[in-house]
């Protein structure tokens, strides 16, 4: 497995872990009735922050390991094609999330729902992008 494919797997797993962690913390706090005290904002911000940090650390670690093993880290034409495919697939959810947030804001919904719609737009986009890339690496780009 090349370094780019490993990165795609890592980003996918981090996105899944992030959203699972966020939903779990949200459910626990809702259950305890402490969500109004704690607020969803720190949970969301911590999850996003930890996800970004984990992504950077994993990326650096994989790059160092590939460098030590003498593996090429440059993207070739197949890597770029798979990356484009992943971005195209993930883009749909980014638009859906943004549009949902916009409509909720126009309808003057609670900020909780607007923030979560945008958050899930980003997360689902990242997950779908990751799945598309991993599948494309394994089975090829469908065109």
């Amino acid at each position: 497995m090349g370094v780019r494919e490993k990165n795609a797997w890592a980003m996918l797993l981090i996105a899944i872990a992030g959203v699972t962690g966020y939903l779990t913390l949200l459910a626990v706090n809702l259950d305890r009735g402490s969500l109004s005290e704690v607020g969803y904002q720190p949970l969301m911000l911590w999850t996003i922050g930890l996800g970004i940090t984990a992504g950077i650390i994993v990326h650096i670690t994989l790059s160092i390991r590939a460098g030590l093993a003498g593996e090429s880290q440059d993207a070739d034409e197949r890597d770029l094609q798979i990356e484009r495919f992943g971005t195209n697939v993930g883009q749909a959810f980014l638009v859906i999330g943004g549009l949902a947030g916009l409509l909720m804001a126009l309808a003057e919904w609670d900020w909780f729902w607007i923030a979560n719609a945008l958050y899930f737009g980003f997360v689902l986009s990242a997950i779908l992008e990751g799945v598309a890339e991993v599948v494309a690496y394994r089975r090829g780009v469908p065109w």
Partner: protein
Amino acid sequence: MVKPTTITNRIRALRFEHGEMTQAELGKQIGMTRQTVIAIEQSRYSPSLETAFRIAQVFGVPLDHVFQYN
């Protein structure tokens, strides 16, 4: 309706005819990763025309000796 087409190749055979060239060596010569060479060999990825010509050039054969369009 357009009939599905497949591009097959003889890269594996050509590598062995050329001193059992490894996939990594071929990849280095054409500027691709070993994983991409594997994907091309297994027909999971159709390379660009430029890459296809580069592969043929490495083996010193015409393009249609490497790739076949069915």
